[in-house]
């Protein structure tokens, strides 16, 4: 396997007695788009700022293109960055903002003008060159900030929650635009976000962070379908968690509210009598026994919410409550609260949370 383009090795960051990033490791391939996903305070922005050079790691090293950049100043790293608050220079026009890095690098005026025009074409704002930032909408400002970041052809692009200050509609269109520009230019990119939908929709891989550590690194498919920890399972998507008691660890048998469930494979590290947390995505569960589903549980309808095309049902199974969605069918009335109901699912969709 080729050497990674960006390698973050055993990085730790402490502010006084508080450790905000602990033994963080990540290798990023050239041209890859990796998202750091996690709640506020999980350390994702701190890792990004260490890659940018705004924070110095307390331990560990950061390597880009085979070169150790851990102690380099931000202006020596050739890294582009887009900030949450746009950070366009208010005193400069759009063209001057985009050309700032090029001018600092000592590029000739004609070359700067040509590169700025190219960037404005890429972000589809060629008519905005002479405007000032205050004359632009938030979405336009962030596109200019993106153009400014990539104009000097950085080795690495860092995006620090670039969409969180924008309204929902602009957010969706801009994230697709960012991804398309990133693919077109083939630039290795780190994207920080706390929005799981954003991370799932545009990333090659996601590092889910919690408490200063990477809980799991994987493709969006892996992160969603095979969460490695309870935190990842809970943080990414909606999840039903059921408490079960191990009855036979070797054959993967678990009891949920006195009903037996057979899991795929044996339960390593568990013994009979242990309590386990079992997770099921709502879309893996059907109301009633369905063909193809090898496991079922009986319970009672606890809540029914009619949402038009979808009916959201919550089924109580002992002390557990399972949420699932069914499509509205005009020929079948929705279930009634209090009536007995079975739910079914494939045992392979049930995850054991650690």
């Amino acid at each position, binding site marked *: 396997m080729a050497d990674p383009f960006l390698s973050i090795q055993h990085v730790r960051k402490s502010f006084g007695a508080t450790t905000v990033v602990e033994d963080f490791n990540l290798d990023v391939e050239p041209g890859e788009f990796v998202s750091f996903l996690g709640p506020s305070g999980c350390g994702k922005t701190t890792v990004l700022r260490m890659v940018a050079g705004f924070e110095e790691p307390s331990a560990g090293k950061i390597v880009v293109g085979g070169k150790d950049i851990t102690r380099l*100043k*931000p202006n020596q790293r050739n890294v582009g*960055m887009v900030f949450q608050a746009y*950070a366009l*220079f208010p005193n400069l026009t759009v063209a001057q903002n985009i050309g*700032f890095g090029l001018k*600092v690098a000592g590029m000739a005026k004609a070359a700067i003008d040509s590169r700025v025009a190219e960037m404005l074409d890429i972000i589809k704002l060629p008519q905005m060159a002479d405007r000032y930032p*205050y004359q632009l909408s938030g979405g336009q400002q962030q596109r200019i900030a993106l153009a400014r*970041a990539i104009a*000097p052809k950085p080795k690495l692009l860092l995006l620090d929650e670039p969409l969180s200050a924008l309204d929902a509609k602009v957010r969706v269109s801009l994230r697709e635009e960012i991804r398309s520009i990133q693919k077109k230019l083939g630039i290795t990119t780190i994207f920080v976000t706390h929005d799981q939908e954003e991370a799932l929709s545009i990333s090659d891989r996601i590092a889910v962070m919690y408490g200063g550590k990477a809980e799991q690194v994987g493709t969006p498919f892996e992160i969603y379908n095979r969460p490695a920890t309870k935190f990842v399972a809970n943080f990414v998507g909606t999840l039903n968690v059921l408490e079960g008691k191990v009855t036979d660890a070797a054959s993967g048998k678990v009891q949920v509210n006195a009903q037996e469930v057979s899991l795929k494979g044996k339960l390593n590290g568990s013994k009979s009598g242990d309590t386990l947390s079992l997770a099921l995505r709502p879309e893996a569960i059907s109301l009633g026994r369905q063909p193809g589903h090898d496991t079922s549980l009986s319970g009672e309808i606890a809540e029914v919410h009619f949402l038009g095309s979808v009916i959201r049902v919550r089924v109580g199974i002992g002390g557990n409550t399972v949420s699932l969605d069914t499509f509205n069918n005009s020929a079948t009335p929705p279930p009634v609260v209090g009536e007995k109901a079975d739910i079914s699912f494939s045992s392979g969709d049930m995850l054991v949370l650690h």
Partner: protein
Amino acid sequence: MKSGRFWAWVVFILGAGYFFIPLIATVEFSMRMRRGAYSFDAYQIVLGDPRFQATFMYSVIAAIFTIILGVLIVVPAAYWIRLRLPQLRPIVEFITLLPLVIPAIVIVFGYIRMYGSSSPLPFLASDPGTNALLVIGYATLALPYMYRAVDTGLRTIDVRTLTEAAQILGAGWGTIISRVILPNVLIAVLSGAFLTFAIVIGEFTMASLLNRPAFGPYLQNIGANRAYEPAALAIIAFAITWGCMSLIQILSRFAPKSANRPN
């Protein structure tokens, strides 16, 4: 509602009267030099006086150097405190307020003791040295105004993010301060510069005790010995101040536009 408006006008007229009546009286008095007729004789005498021209030019030059020195000290200091040392702000604010509570005469006596011809830094041993010391003293006197003006300007921009955005684009500290920070606080710097100018033009104590040919001591000298000329000088000084304010308004139109000041 109508009653509120009436009292607002009363307060306005009283305020305007308090401000304009002495001014009008001074103008009127300054024009009565020629017996039985209004004239600009006092102004002609003052403006034609070579000492007026020399002292005024001296103070203008001193003000320019004071502004340059103030900007060079205050802008990087206020910027750095906002960026890296916010915990020092209360201490620095206290220090910048000291010139308001320590009389200029105390400062200047301190200078005379510290920088006399026998000291390791003998500023007072030569005219250029004394001029430099006067400018340093003026910069100290203007510090509360310059610091507050610049700090207020810095408060209107996101100093940290703009600095980081410039840094990541390859800019060093010189470029960041000159191309990003200073243009965005230019109006605030101009306000500080105007206040500095006003302080320096009328300052008497330091210039007098350091024996410098400044405008302040000249004003005092004329005021003590003449009748109509001091009134003419007061009006001229007033006109200069208003001229400065107008100049700042004009300059601010050419200042870089910012999101905080769209017009």
